[in-house]
């Protein structure tokens, strides 16, 4: 059994220093790996990320992350990825990582993902170049996720995104903003490649539990949804 801890949308900054440390210190007792589902910071600055890395110091398990939209706000993505890498947090974007857990293997494929909406009520890459770029960005990231998932030959496979792959986990979010919360293209990619679990964040007013149209469990681990520092999911290969 592999125990996966996951949380997204911690939106860390100086004013929240110390709030997560206690829970992360206890994490190695209850989980084998930690997944961070994007929006690690409030404004995407190195200073904010340094605060999060200090919080994470006790979480001495393999740590994998995707970035979220907030992490792009200051246009410092390369610097953030370097900082994370130096601290031993592997950032996934269209690629995958394999973690050995007591002889079992966990494969995690990740992407930030993007919006566009859900089947039957979604944007199309049609018309203005801006609209094509918007939907096209999601399509590229979803394709990359599918290839990354399909490349995994592990006992357990998890897809990690920031944006939502299904509507199920949007809960009390307003219908009007669904296209900014996720895209069915991400769910379709996961269903095509197969996985044991999908973990995402971004939808703060969402619900924790959902399922893809193909029957794969989806969990929204945004901190405001969980109302705990992280959730722990146990997976059998």
């Amino acid at each position, binding site marked *: 059994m592999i125990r996966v801890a996951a949380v997204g949308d911690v939106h860390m900054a100086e004013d929240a220093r110390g709030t997560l440390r206690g829970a992360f210190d206890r994490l190695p007792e209850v989980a084998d790996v930690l997944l961070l589902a994007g929006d690690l910071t*409030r*404004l995407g600055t190195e200073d904010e990320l340094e605060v999060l890395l200090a919080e994470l110091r006790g979480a001495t398990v393999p740590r994998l992350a995707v970035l979220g939209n907030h992490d792009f706000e200051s246009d410092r993505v390369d610097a953030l990825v370097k900082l994370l890498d130096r601290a031993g947090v592997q950032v996934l974007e269209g690629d995958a990582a394999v973690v050995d857990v007591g002889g079992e293997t966990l494969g995690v494929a990740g992407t930030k993902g993007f919006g566009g909406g859900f089947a039957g009520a979604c944007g199309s890459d049609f018309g203005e170049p801006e609209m094509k770029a918007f939907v096209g960005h999601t399509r590229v990231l979803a394709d990359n996720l599918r290839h990354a998932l399909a490349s995994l030959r592990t006992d357990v496979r998890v897809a990690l995104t920031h944006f939502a792959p299904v509507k199920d986990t949007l809960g009390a979010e307003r219908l009007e903003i669904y296209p900014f919360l996720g895209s069915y293209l991400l769910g379709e990619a996961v269903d095509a490649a197969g996985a044991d679990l999908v973990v995402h964040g971004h939808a*703060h007013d969402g619900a924790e539990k959902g399922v893809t149209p193909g029957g794969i469990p989806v969990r929204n681990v945004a901190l405001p949804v969980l109302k705990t*520092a992280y959730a*722990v999911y*146990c997976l059998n290969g």
Partner: protein
Amino acid sequence: MSTWDAQQDGVPTQYVVARVRDALAHDARVAALDLQVRIIGSELFLTGMVSSDRRRDAAEAVVRREVPDLTIHNQLDVLPVDAPSGREEIS
């Protein structure tokens, strides 16, 4: 009076709400896209979740700066961040 007709200094209320939400998104102390703002008459209700008391206070300050004449009800909650007490078996 419909929401559309409600006004603040001659500006339809929904535009005021949009302006306040935009300010909450762009103020570096808050940078929150998910806080809810509702204006009823001369009262503004601010709801949602933030990650610290300081961010809660900063959000109120941003709102007060944008709409100084309204009575502000800061009903923001600070997120609990304890370790989980259980776990889920995914099957």
